[in-house]
Structures are given as structure tokens and as C-alpha cells.
């Protein structure tokens, strides 16, 4: 018993010792685990503290953008061209809506929601947090706002949000130039600096709105707010002010733009007018235009397709994207090249028999006047636009010297105007042909280049700029659209200093004066191709008409197609370039009318009206409907000038005493048969229009139909060219 209890005691003692060992081990293990916890704690709270602090701030801080107000666009006189207008958008906050589908179904008939609206809404909704409103329909009309307001009680979570939209008071008259803003596309978004577009929905898409996006946009401000996990802002931590966009004063004269636009009438074409003293662009019209405003709210697919498929191609900016052969408007520059290289002088003569041949060849290079101009010098060749004189000049100069001299005037490269998508055009050269066509240059091609045909591609803006350089006797400035910037807060106006262009290499002032005097003859001497337009002008104009050939004529084809019998897309383009006044040039202008016929009768009157408006403040020139019959006046003119008769002179009762502002009414004589063969100059229909044909084919302008290799070319009839042909 004693032993038993002793054993029991001993066991108890053993048990206690064993237990204590176990407790000690467990304690040690616990302490080890505590150390592990502390180590982890030190890692998170001490070593990685900065990292997690940043993560915590990223969690809680939200930047709420305060979009800047976009800058306004004015013309040079302060006329508004683009402004912000309050707009009303219908927004749905999904957070507050119980049944979205039911809501949309009941809302659709009230607000005239289209399936497109709903599709766009669903698209936007996917990218927007639920507590934020999503636009369901933008740019509500007042009637739609009212319709919603009376039914508002029925639509919980739907609200009208006021914002700013963009309007263009000039509408289609300056749509290419000013451009428009529109929703930021995915492609644009991937390229832009996101910080600069916080809260901004619209971006410049075209024209000034695009090229001056940076200045117009401004800098978004931001509110840093603390937001909870659901993203709902709870309090403001900080405000970072932004800056509104700058207002732009364009060089454009809105009135002039409107006059030019109206002067073009129904014609498709372009007008570019530049102040040669500064390079400021005064007017830049491309017709037809389009209404920019549908683009702002997001144009519908149907509307957009209509614009794209419109045969008039209204979206295309003819003033700087349209490239055309310059036709005879290149002749002043050719003359300058001849004088500058001492290849020709004012007394250089040529005999025009109506046809020109390269030595030892039989291919005919025809003057537009088949019967020939007889003996011409530089002045009369310019005034009457004799092709033979310039064939001879071009042959003498050779393509390389032509290329060098004309390159000085800016042909073949974009003028660098601050409007996007300008084209370079093409100044033909031996190198270009080798590179692009893998062919050598043929001498015959040089002759075509000399009269502004062949590979030439010139934009109306380039022509205006080249004219401005001529006007400035080799000086001149880069063409630009912005006259001044205005800070909308301080009202500080910062002017834009024109960038002078580098002078020509070794130019001689007298060469410019010579060329300009021949251009003066075009306008102010009887027999000049634009005499009818220039004769009553109270200021002196230097100008040149041009008719750019679109379709070719075979070498043997003698009949000149009539304007009426030719499909419209194959008719010639009418060109005119001029500057005025001659002694102190204030405006240089180029006019192009697509498929409109002769430069003197179609393009020159447009330019004259624009120059009147700019120089006189009103249009005193007026055009009249041209009767198809001869009248006395034309005979008079024709006798005065070397037997030459400008077609319009013959067929028009020219002088219009009463000045009036009117869009030109140009009628091409309808009954071709009677009209043409005027008594004048004895041109027979047979040789009236024939064209040069280079040995190696001739490049027609972009719109020309495909030609076969041996097809001939119809010579570009200039305006002087008598007329409307027989059927």
C-alpha cells in the first residue's frame, strides 16, 4: 500500500515533470511564432511602408477633372467663327435606376431615342462607373428638354446635364478651314496625352480646330477628392486650377470669305487669297462645303455616308488638297525663269503658226489658237497666252532650269499653312520621273511643262502663295491662318509675327517688274485674256488666266469637243491668279473652278469680286449672262489688239456700268454651232484646239480617264480661245 502510494506519487511527480517539459516546449514554440508575426509586421510596416502608403493613397484619391473652356475662334475683325454654346444632354445614372431596361423602354418614345442612341449608351455605360451619369442623348433641342421636364417625375435617375457644345456661325462657308470638333476616337485617344484631356470629350478633327487644338483646348484643372471603395467622392483634398483655351483671331476676313464663296456660285472649286505683305490668309474657300455641326454631336452613319458619296466631294478641301495642272497660270513663272536665266528677254520673239515642232520630229505641239498668234513677244505672248512662245521658252530653258526657278516659288511642296492635310503637289523634274516612273525625261515633256500641263500638280493655295511671292518681288511670308492669340482671362492679345521666306538666289528686281508688267497687260490691255475683267477696275491688277486640260485628245483629232458635249468630269478646269494693286500689293489670289471651262470667263470674275471687296470694301464688278451672239463691242476690241479676240469679248455686251454685288452668272453658250467661229482671227475649227503630245505620253491630272500610250492630247484651251465648239 505504501509502496503503491509511493509509486503513485512517483508517477505523479514524473507526470508533472513531463507536463512542465511539454509546457516549456510549447512556450518556446509560441514565442517563435510571435517572432514570426513581428518579423512579418516589421516587413510590412517598416520595410514596405512607403510602397503600401502609396497603394493606400492610390486607393482613396480620385482626380475629378475640371475640363477647360475651349477657346473661341474669331476672324481678323472679331467676327465669331466658332463658339461654345450651352448644350443639354440626357444622362442616366444607373446607380439610381431600379430596372434599366424598363426605364429605357418607357423613355425611348418620350425622347425619340433611336437604336443608335441606345447602342452608344450601352457602349459608354460599360466604361463608366455606376454612380456616374452616362449620356443617353446629346444636344437636346429645347423642345426635347421641355418634353423631358414634364415627364421628369416618371424617370428616376435620369437627368438633363448642361454642358458646352460648339457651333460654327459661318456653317458650310468656312467648314474646311475652321474644321470642327468631335468625340475623341479610340485611335486619337491612344495617341494623346491623357492628362491633357481629363474631362474633355471633344477634340479638333479638321481645319483650325485640329491644327490649333493645343492652344484652343487649354489645360484641364482637377479636384483631388477622397473617394470610398465604391468610388463615390466624399471630400475635396486639393484643387489644381486649369487654364481655359486661348481665343484665336484668324487672319481670315469673314466678309471676304463669304464674298468669295458666293462668287463661286454653283461651281465646285476653291479660292485662296493671301495678304502678300504678311502671308496672312484672307480667304480660303473650298466648294462645295458641308455643315460642320452634325459632326460635333457625333454624326450619324447615314449622314456621313451621304457626305462621302456626294459626287461633289464636299469633305475634300480643294484649296489645299486639290491638285490640278496649273495650265497657263504657270506662264508668268516661266517668263520669270526665262528672264532670270537670261534665256529670254522682253524682246524675245516667237512666230506662232498654231503648231510647234521639236527639231527633227513630226509630233505637233499645238497652240490653243489653231490659226496661230503670228509673231509674239513676251508681253503679247503673256497677254494672249500664246502656247508656242512658251514651248520655245521651255525648250530653251530645259526641265532642270525650269524646275530650279519654279521651285523658288514653292511649287512642289506644301506651303506649310497651319491647316492639316495640305498636299505637296508636284513640280516635275528629271529626278522625280526617274524615281517615280523609272523612266527618263523626254524633251517633249518639257514643252508641256512650259504651258502648265503634263505632270504638274498644284493646289490653289500654292498658286496663291506663288502669286504672293511674285507680288512681293521675291519676298513674302509663310502663309498662316492665325493673326493673334488672346488669353481669355487677362485679355492679353499676342500677335503672330509673320515668318519671312528666304529670298531667291540671285534674283533681279527688274525681272519681276518685267513679268508683272506682262501680267498687267493680261488685265488692262485690250486683247488680254482677262481684259474684260480688268478693264473697269479702279486699281491695277496683275493676273493670268489658265485653263487646265483634263482629258486628252488624240494627235489626229482635230475637232475641239464642246463644253456641253463633254462629260462634266472631263471638262477643263478654269484657273485664275492675280494680285493687286501692282505697285503696293495687298492681295494675292488664286481661283480654281473645277470642270468649268475657261479661266478668263469663269475664274477671273470670281477673283475680281474678291479683290473689289478687299480693296474697295464693296464689289463693283458684276457679271452678266453671256449671250451667244456677237455684238459690236467685241469687234471693237478685236481690232484693237492685233486681230486677237477674246471669246467673251466677242460674245458679250461687256461693259456693265452699274456696279452691283451679285454672284456671277455665267452661262456657257448653249447653242454651240452658231457661236463659235467668230469672224475673228480666222481660226478655223480645224486647228482651233490641238494639243501637244509628248513622245512619251502625257500625264493627265488625277481626274483624267486612263489613256492609251499613243493617245494624243488636246491642248489646253485658254480663255482667249474662241470658244464653244461645234457639236
Amino acid at each position, binding site marked *: 500500500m505504501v509502496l503503491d502510494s509511493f509509486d503513485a506519487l512517483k508517477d505523479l511527480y514524473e507526470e508533472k515533470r513531463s507536463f512542465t517539459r511539454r*509546457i516549456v516546449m510549447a512556450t518556446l514554440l509560441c514565442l517563435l511564432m510571435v517572432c514570426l508575426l513581428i518579423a512579418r509586421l516589421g516587413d510590412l510596416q517598416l520595410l514596405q511602408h512607403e510602397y503600401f502608403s502609396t497603394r493606400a493613397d492610390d486607393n*482613396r484619391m480620385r482626380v475629378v477633372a475640371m475640363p477647360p473652356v475651349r477657346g473661341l475662334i474669331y476672324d481678323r475683325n472679331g467676327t465669331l467663327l466658332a463658339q461654345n454654346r450651352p448644350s443639354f444632354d440626357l444622362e442616366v445614372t444607373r446607380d439610381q435606376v431600379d430596372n434599366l431596361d424598363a426605364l429605357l423602354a418607357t423613355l425611348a418614345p418620350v425622347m425619340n431615342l433611336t437604336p443608335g442612341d441606345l447602342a452608344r449608351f450601352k457602349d459608354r455605360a460599360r466604361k463608366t462607373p455606376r454612380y456616374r451619369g452616362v449620356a443617353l442623348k446629346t444636344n437636346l433641342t429645347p423642345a426635347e428638354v421641355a418634353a423631358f421636364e414634364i415627364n421628369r417625375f416618371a424617370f428616376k435617375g435620369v437627368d438633363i446635364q448642361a454642358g458646352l457644345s460648339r457651333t460654327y456661325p459661318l456653317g458650310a462657308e468656312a467648314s474646311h478651314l475652321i474644321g470642327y470638333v468631335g468625340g475623341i476616337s479610340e485611335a486619337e485617344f491612344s495617341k494623346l496625352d491623357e492628362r491633357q484631356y481629363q474631362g474633355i470629350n471633344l477634340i479638333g478633327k479638321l481645319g483650325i480646330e485640329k491644327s490649333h487644338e493645343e492652344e484652343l483646348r487649354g489645360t484641364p484643372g482637377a479636384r483631388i477628392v477622397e473617394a470610398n471603395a465604391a468610388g463615390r467622392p466624399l471630400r475635396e483634398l486639393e484643387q489644381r486650377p486649369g487654364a481655359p483655351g486661348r481665343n484665336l483671331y484668324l487672319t481670315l476676313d469673314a466678309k471676304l470669305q463669304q464674298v468669295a464663296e458666293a462668287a463661286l456660285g454653283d461651281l465646285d472649286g476653291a479660292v485662296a487669297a493671301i495678304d502678300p505683305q504678311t502671308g496672312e490668309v484672307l480667304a480660303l474657300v473650298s466648294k462645295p462645303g458641308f455643315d460642320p455641326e452634325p459632326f460635333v454631336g457625333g454624326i450619324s452613319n447615314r449622314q456621313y455616308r451621304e457626305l462621302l458619296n456626294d459626287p461633289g466631294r464636299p469633305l475634300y478641301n480643294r484649296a489645299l488638297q486639290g491638285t490640278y495642272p496649273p495650265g497657263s497660270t504657270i506662264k508668268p513663272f516661266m517668263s520669270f525663269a526665262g528672264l532670270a536665266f537670261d534665256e529670254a528677254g522682253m524682246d524675245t520673239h516667237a512666230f506662232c503658226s498654231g503648231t510647234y515642232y521639236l527639231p527633227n520630229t513630226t509630233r505637233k505641239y499645238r497652240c490653243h489658237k489653231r490659226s496661230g498668234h503670228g509673231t509674239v513677244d513676251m508681253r503679247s505672248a503673256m497677254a494672249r497666252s500664246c502656247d508656242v512662245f512658251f514651248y520655245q521658252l521651255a525648250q530653251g530653258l530645259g526641265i532642270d532650269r525650269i524646275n530650279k526657278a519654279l521651285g523658288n516659288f514653292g511649287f512642289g511642296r506644301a506651303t506649310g499653312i497651319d491647316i492639316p492635310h495640305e498636299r505637296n503637289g508636284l513640280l516635275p523634274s528629271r529626278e522625280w520621273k526617274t524615281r517615280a516612273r523609272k523612266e527618263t525625261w523626254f524633251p517633249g515633256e518639257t514643252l508641256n511643262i512650259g504651258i502648265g500641263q503634263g505632270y504638274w500638280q498644284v493646289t490653289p493655295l500654292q498658286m496663291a502663295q506663288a502669286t504672293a511671292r511674285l507680288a512681293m518681288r521675291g519676298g513674302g511670308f509663310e502663309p498662316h491662318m492665325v493673326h493673334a492669340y488672346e488669353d481669355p482671362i487677362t485679355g492679353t492679345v499676342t500677335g503672330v509675327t509673320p515668318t519671312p521666306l528666304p529670298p531667291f538666289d540671285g534674283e533681279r528686281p527688274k525681272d519681276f517688274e518685267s513679268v508683272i508688267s506682262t501680267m498687267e497687260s493680261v488685265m488692262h490691255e485690250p486683247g488680254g485674256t482677262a481684259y474684260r475683267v480688268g478693264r473697269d477696275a479702279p486699281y491695277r491688277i496683275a493676273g493670268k488666266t489658265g485653263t487646265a486640260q483634263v482629258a486628252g485628245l488624240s494627235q489626229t483629232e482635230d475637232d475641239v469637243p464642246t463644253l456641253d458635249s463633254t462629260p462634266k468630269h472631263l471638262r477643263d478646269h478654269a484657273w485664275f491668279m492675280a494680285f493687286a494693286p501692282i505697285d503696293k500689293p495687298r492681295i494675292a489670289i488664286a481661283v480654281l473652278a473645277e470642270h468649268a471651262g475657261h479661266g478668263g470667263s469663269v475664274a477671273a470674275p470670281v477673283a475680281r469680286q474678291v479683290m473689289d471687296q478687299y480693296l474697295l470694301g464693296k464689289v463693283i464688278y458684276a457679271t452678266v449672262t453671256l449671250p451667244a451672239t456677237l455684238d459690236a463691242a467685241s469687234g471693237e476690241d478685236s481690232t484693237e489688239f492685233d486681230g486677237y479676240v477674246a471669246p467673251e469679248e466677242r460674245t458679250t455686251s461687256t461693259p456693265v456700268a452699274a456696279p452691283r454685288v451679285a454672284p456671277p452668272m455665267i452661262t456657257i453658250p448653249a447653242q454651240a454651232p452658231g457661236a463659235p467661229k467668230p469672224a475673228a482671227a480666222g481660226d478655223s475649227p480645224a486647228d482651233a484646239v490641238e494639243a501637244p503630245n509628248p513622245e512619251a505620253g502625257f500625264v493627265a491630272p488625277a481626274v483624267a480617264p486612263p489613256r492609251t500610250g499613243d493617245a494624243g492630247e488636246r491642248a489646253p484651251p485658254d480663255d482667249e480661245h474662241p470658244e464653244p465648239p461645234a457639236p
Partner: protein
Amino acid sequence: MSSALTPTPHTPSATWSERLLKLHIDVWLVGLLAAVGCMGLAVLYSASGGSANEVFAQFQRLVLGFVVMITLAQVPPDYYRAGAPWFYGAACVLLVLVLVLGDHAKGAQRWLDLGVLRFQPSEMMKLAMPMMVAAWLHGRPLPPGWRDVLMTLALIGLPSSLVVVQPDLGTCLLIMAAGGFALYLGGLSWRWIVGAAAAIAAAAPLLWYRLHDYQRNRVLTFLDPESDPLGTGYHITQSKIAIGSGGAFGKGLLNGTQAKLDFLPEAHTDFIFAVLAEELGMIGVLALLCLYVAIVGRGLFIAMRGHDSFQRLLAGALSLTFFIYVFINMGMVMGLMPVVGVPLPLFSYGGTSAVTLLAGFGMLMSIHTHRKLLTS
């Protein structure tokens, strides 16, 4: 020995302790537990977004818990030993009932609605398990022979399997831990322990396939929380941000952005530790850890001085289980282990766990204050 049992009446503090001891209250435990409770209430106030209601509700539960604790302390340990099988049996029956008619909450069947009272029998088992194992091993020669070990394992295995199918893996592990600790303290041979560890390692792949999707996700998330920062990894990512951004000194009470702005999920319950770490920093966490370590230390001290096997094993198992609670919760919130639903003891909002834990401490105090001389 006797001096420890009969406190010397010469100092005023001794008088105090003596008086409280007669009321079966251990000053150390009550003081430490109350300190943790108060700290918990302060952090809860912040975590619940300054809700006085929630703090008051939690305060009421803590008071209830303390009342339960002190009440249970009045009962001599022998009664617990005698009652252990009945209590254990009742808990097992209730667990079966839960499976048959329990309420579903959060996808698991854990609750039993008794009309007046809804409670989780698994919580009851957290106490019943160590009691049962301690009572079973009491009076048997220790270290236990293999028969006793097998019997003990069966006692542990039955309720654990009932809990794991609810499914409630966290509680199951805690129940197994409570029984396991008692067995370990009873002197379980190391061979058994090593063998069991090997067996678990071998069974792990099998276990993996038995896990529910959400449980598997928790493990995967634990391994790479950032792999799915908005899904299953969200909890752990956000709690790490909260802890890390707290730094050494914290953002200050009520200034924690992670909790206040709802980035931290379960901020006032399972993840309240992250709120503490964010607002009071490493200093605050270390203070709390000291309190917990002191509580566990006091518990183990009581266990060492336990009178018989039952007292020692029960007190030891309860103390170690308490530590495991703390470790698992902190470990999971800090991303040291997968997320299992274990609250931070006496800190997380919620009544059941606090009352259960305090009831356990009631038994500890009973063991401490009902000591008699070995030879009387």
C-alpha cells in the same frame, strides 16, 4: 509551496488579491482580458465608422462574457471534470442536429435556432473538446498508451468531422487543435506526433480535392494574392495595404483610410487587426501582442500549477488554443497564411466567440482559485 497557495497578508495589494482570490477572480487574467477588450472597443469604434451603437453592442457582449467568466470561475474544477462527458455528448448531439436542421448562413450550415437563442454548437465544442480530452486522460497513466491515444483521437475526430462537413474548416482546425494540445500536453509520444505530421503531409493532396472551391481559392489566393486583386485576393491585398501604410506609429485612431473608406473588407470583424495596424501602427500592434502573450503566459502558468492532470491539461490546452486563435488571425490578415474565418479573440466584433473564450478563461480561473493542498 504553501506560501504560494496562501498569499501573505502583509501588503495591501496582497490583501486585495487575497480578497479577489476568495471571489475566485484572478486579477492578472481579468485585468489583461479587460485591457484587450477595451483596446478592441476603441479600434472597433473606428472600424465601424464611428458607430457608437456597434461599440455599445460589443461592450454588452463583453460584459456578458465577463459575467459568464466570473460565474464559471465559482465552480470547482472537479465539477467540470465530472460534467465533461455530458457536455461533450450534448455538443455532439447538437452538431448532428445542426447538420439536420441548421440554418444556412453564408453558404454554410453552422447555426442552430432554438427559438429564443441562435447559436453555433461548434463554439460549444471548442470548450467541450479540451474538457473531454483532459477528463479522459485524467486518471490514466501518462504518457498515454496507444489504446488511450486511439480513443482520444476518436474523441477528437468525431466532432471535427461533424464540423468540417458544415463546412467550417477554421473552427474544425481550432477544435482539433484544442483536443490535440491536451493530448500533446498529456505526453503524447513524439513518434505519434511525427507520424501524424507525416500522415497529414501525405494526405494533403487528397485533402485538396475534398476542399470546397472557396476554400481552395483562399489557399491559392494566399499563395499569390495579387493574381486576382479584385476577386479572391482583394481581402488580403487590401489588408496588407492597410497594415503597411500604418507604418511604425500609425495614422491615428479614426484616421485609417483603408477601413473608413470601405477598401478593407470585414474591417470590424475578421480583419479588425488591419485597422489596428493602420491606425495605431506597429507600436499599437506590439502593445496588443504583449497583452496576448501575457494572457497566454498567465494561462500556462496556471496550467503548470494545476492540481491534477485534468486541470493541467485543460488549462494548458485552453491557453494554447487561445494563442492559436491570435496567431491564425494575425497570420492570415498579414498574409502569412490562407484566409480562414478566425476572429481576433476579444477584439473582433461578434458575441459568440468572445463569450466562448471568456467562458474558457472562467474555467482557467476556477482551476487557479480552487487549489487545495496536495496533502490534506
